[in-house]
């Protein structure tokens, strides 16, 4: 990565070599795009705040002046060099960490993207050399072509040796380096095998090309293509793995992008627009309707309704008045207000969610890398077997002993190269993941798939996951001479101009029931209470208990029915006409059509189903009853969800999955062994999750688990096959059949055997294509 810097005044990226000016302050060097920027910076002195706009724009020669603030401004965080990012303390706690953190995340991502591109370039280079060689090798199997190629055999060999050397030296460099590093540290790893196998293959082939007379008849083959193709395939695998990881860290960047970028603060009696990083604790911040709240704080003046769904996941706006707490990144719906900033930067609720997601992601166990778990014993064992083979042939074998010994040793090293073993898992995964995708279930990686097959508990978020996530009209209970139609019509007309989701549910519900919803003659929204309107010449009030008290409407008639509605998990909206109780309208977030069926299917698969929600116990129980869920975790604060998941994991009854849709579910989704995001949910939840259910139906969870179980069974078969192949293949390569049958395995045949085992594995994996999940059948029936 280039070591570029950001001009602290205008925010432009500056190449130090071309900087128009340099200043040093407190041991940190700053580079400037123009002399003007440097001048401003020097003039501002320590603690200067720069608005980062306009300095270089000719359209605004009179750029906003430099503003001075009492707060220390973290100019160093504007340095975006990798060195600066690396020196950031891991858990530094200061007000502006959010910004530095952002830079760090972006830097790491760029570095990962760069390694991906490099790996792919190395892969293409290795393939470009390897594929023609592979075709040439196949051509030798056709007798006529073999005959035609014969005169050029040695020339082709020598050319191949020269061509493949750069592939090993450049594309394969990391394997040799890693093997060497491991050797120096008394360690072996997968790279050791790759380096030994490809290195031995190349060296052997080169000797065979240069001095074919040294080899017994029929063993002087060359297999440069083996060396190059192995390098190419392993590079491709690693590049794809890296790409999957880059995607997952994009979730963090998304979360940070949800923040407001600027804030309007009142300092010294003046309103100033400043970057959100520059808001300090104690600032008075002004928020107008439609704007995002920049940081956490307490309302000083004004009233409004705030959409906090970004953090809490609850779609109903919350009314705020003087003294109430507001959460950064929530959206101001109705009124303007001012608040005092109490938490900024890394301390805000949103920043803490980011930290939790990050923590959970980095602490997730990498299960499913069965092949990679080849312990440190495998490689040295193979090398020892190869040496023993060499010695056995050298001491007891027929003449020419040296040649036989070398051929068998290389054959052992080549056959032990874990290609079939390496192919066994990814190929089944590819088919399994594809199968799941056909049914609207997107599985992020192999780990997720393996974990999903082992799930014993599935935790379901209530709002938006089990339920539709938006209120709907459910009950109309008229009193005192009103009939259902009239009550609904009056309430709907009164609510028509209201923007509140509960009111919208009543209006929509009335229309769905064929009620003509006209215009009210007068309308007043009473924040935190409901609405008052004049409809058809009558005074109509629709709202909560507080509104009824304010209207002085007797509540005695309401009580019993209201309590009953609440028991069923519904929100009662009271309607008064002319200060007389007219009825109750029930509004509730109802179950999705197929939720109960999905819960039943999960339980029939032996999985415990748990519901988690921030709602009160009564509402939660009501929904759980309808869905058929027995275990309920109610009144769980958003930030507690991840901890509840941990608690379930600690119960030791196997892996725990979590299904959710909101940003507030993101930490829990990342913490769970498998996180399932509802596809209709927020992007951040989807990014934090391992599995995305495109259709938004819970049935996808059932499908995901079924497909993963089938895939895992398939992988086990493949691994078993590949293992058997290795156990049988190594002795044969070592020449165990020679004394009996006079059969000596040429490394070329070892290569062909490897291909055959791969074909077996691929064929077995393809059987998965015929798998039909039960949930899929239920859809079609």
């Amino acid at each position, binding site marked *: 990565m280039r070591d570029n810097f950001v001009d602290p005044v205008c925010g432009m990226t500056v190449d130090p070599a071309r900087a128009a000016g340099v200043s040093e302050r407190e041991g940190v060097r700053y580079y400037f795009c123009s002399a003007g920027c440097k001048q401003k910076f020097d003039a501002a002195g320590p603690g200067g705040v720069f608005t980062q706009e306009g300095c270089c724009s000719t359209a605004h020669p009179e750029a906003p002046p430099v503003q001075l603030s009492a707060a220390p401004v973290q100019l160093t965080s504007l340095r975006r060099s*990798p060195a600066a*990012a*690396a020196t950031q303390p*891991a*858990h530094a706690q200061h007000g502006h960490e959010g910004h530095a953190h952002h830079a760090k995340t972006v830097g*790491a991502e760029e*570095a990962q993207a760069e*390694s991906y591109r490099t790996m792919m370039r190395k892969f293409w280079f290795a393939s470009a050399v390897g594929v023609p060689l592979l075709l040439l090798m196949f051509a030798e199997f056709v007798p006529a072509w073999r005959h035609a190629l014969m005169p050029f055999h040695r020339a082709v060999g020598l050319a191949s040796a020269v061509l493949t050397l750069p592939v090993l030296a450049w594309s394969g460099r*990391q394997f040799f*380096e*890693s093997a*060497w*590093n*491991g*050797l*120096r*540290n*008394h*360690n*072996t*790893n*997968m*790279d050791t095998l790759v380096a030994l196998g490809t290195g031995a293959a190349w060296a052997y082939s080169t000797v065979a090309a240069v001095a074919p007379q040294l080899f017994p008849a029929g063993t002087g083959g060359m297999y440069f293509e083996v060396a190059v193709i192995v390098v190419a395939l392993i590079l491709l695998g*690693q590049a794809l*793995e*890296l790409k999957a990881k880059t995607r997952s860290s994009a979730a963090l960047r998304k979360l940070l992008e949800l923040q407001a970028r600027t804030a309007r603060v009142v300092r010294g009696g003046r309103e100033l627009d400043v970057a959100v990083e520059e808001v300090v604790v104690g600032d008075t911040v002004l928020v107008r309707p439609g704007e995002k709240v920049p940081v956490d704080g307490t309302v000083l003046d004004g009233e409004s309704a705030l959409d906090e769904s970004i953090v809490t996941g609850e779609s109903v706006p919350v009314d705020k008045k003087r003294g109430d707490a507001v959460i950064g990144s929530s959206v101001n719906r109705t009124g303007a207000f001012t608040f005092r900033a109490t938490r900024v930067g890394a301390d805000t609720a949103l920043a803490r969610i980011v930290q939790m997601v990050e923590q959970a*992601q*980095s*602490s*997730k*166990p*990498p299960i499913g*890398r069965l092949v*990679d*778990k*080849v*312990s*440190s*014993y495998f490689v*040295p064992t193979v*090398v*020892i077997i190869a*040496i*023993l083979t*060499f*010695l056995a042939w*050298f*001491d007891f074998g027929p003449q020419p002993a040296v040649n036989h010994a070398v051929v068998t040793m290389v054959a052992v090293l080549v056959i032990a190269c874990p290609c079939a073993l390496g192919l066994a898992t990814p190929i089944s995964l590819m088919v399994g993941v594809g199968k799941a995708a056909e049914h609207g279930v997107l599985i992020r990686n192999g780990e997720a798939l393996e974990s999903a097959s082992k799930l014993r508990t599935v935790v379901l978020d209530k709002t938006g996951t089990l339920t539709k996530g938006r209120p709907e009209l459910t009950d109309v209970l008229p009193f005192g001479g009103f009939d259902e139609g009239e009550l609904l019509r009056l309430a709907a007309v009164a609510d028509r101009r209201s923007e509140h989701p509960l009111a919208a549910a009543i209006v929509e519900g009335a229309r769905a029931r064929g009620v003509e919803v006209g215009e009210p003659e007068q309308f007043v929204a009473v924040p935190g209470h409901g609405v008052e309107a004049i409809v058809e010449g009558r005074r109509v009030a629709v709202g909560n208990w507080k509104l009824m008290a304010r209207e002085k409407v007797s509540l005695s008639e309401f009580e019993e029915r209201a309590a009953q509605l609440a028991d069923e998990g519904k929100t009662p909206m009271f309607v008064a006409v002319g200060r007389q109780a007219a009825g109750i309208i029930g509004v509730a977030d109802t179950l999705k059509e197929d939720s109960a069926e999905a819960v039943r299917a999960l339980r029939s698969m032996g999985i415990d189903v748990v519901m988690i929600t921030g709602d009160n116990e009564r509402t939660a129980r009501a929904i759980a009853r309808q869905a058929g869920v027995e275990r309920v975790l109610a009144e769980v604060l958003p930030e507690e969800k991840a901890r509840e998941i941990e608690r379930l994991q600690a119960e030791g009854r196997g892996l725990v999955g979590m299904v959710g849709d909101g940003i507030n579910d993101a930490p829990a989704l990342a913490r769970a062994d498998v996180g399932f995001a509802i596809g209709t949910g927020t992007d951040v939840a989807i990014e934090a999750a391992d599995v995305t259910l495109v259709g938004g139906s819970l049935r996808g969870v059932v499908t995901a688990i079924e497909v993963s179980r089938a895939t895992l069974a398939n992988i086990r078969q493949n691994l078993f096959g590949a293992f058997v192949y290795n156990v049988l293949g190594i002795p044969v390569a070592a020449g165990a059949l020679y004394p009996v049958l006079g059969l000596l395995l040429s490394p070329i045949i070892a290569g062909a055997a490897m291909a055959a085992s791969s074909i077996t594995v691929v064929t077995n994996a393809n059987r998965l294509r015929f798998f039909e999940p039960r949930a899929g059948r239920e859809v079609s029936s």
Partner: protein
Amino acid sequence: MNTTQLVVTLVGFGVIVWIVWYFWLWEGEAVSAGTSAGGVQVVDVTVKGGYQPASIVVESGRPLRLNFTRREASLCGEEVVLPDFGRRAHLPENHTVAVEILPGAPGEYEFTCGMNMYKGKLIVR
């Protein structure tokens, strides 16, 4: 068996013995943890084809900070696991990641890479 064969065989077995010793029996020199001003034990561990140092002597009951720095592109050492302490950390290349634990009862505790190929140990005294 002629002399050449004898020599080659002896060399071969010599190599095998060396492999067994070098990869399986070898124990690196144990390094003792330094102590910071705050009373925290601090050890810098480089991840490059293994852990350097691979054996670390620490004091029981005093917080320990392991500063891991991965200095290789190979993905092997990308994750470090301390199974006995239930800790796992992702190690980006050329970044230092601090893992803090509280060593408890004296004994030997292993730490490994995510695939269990690099191995190191904490010797708690």
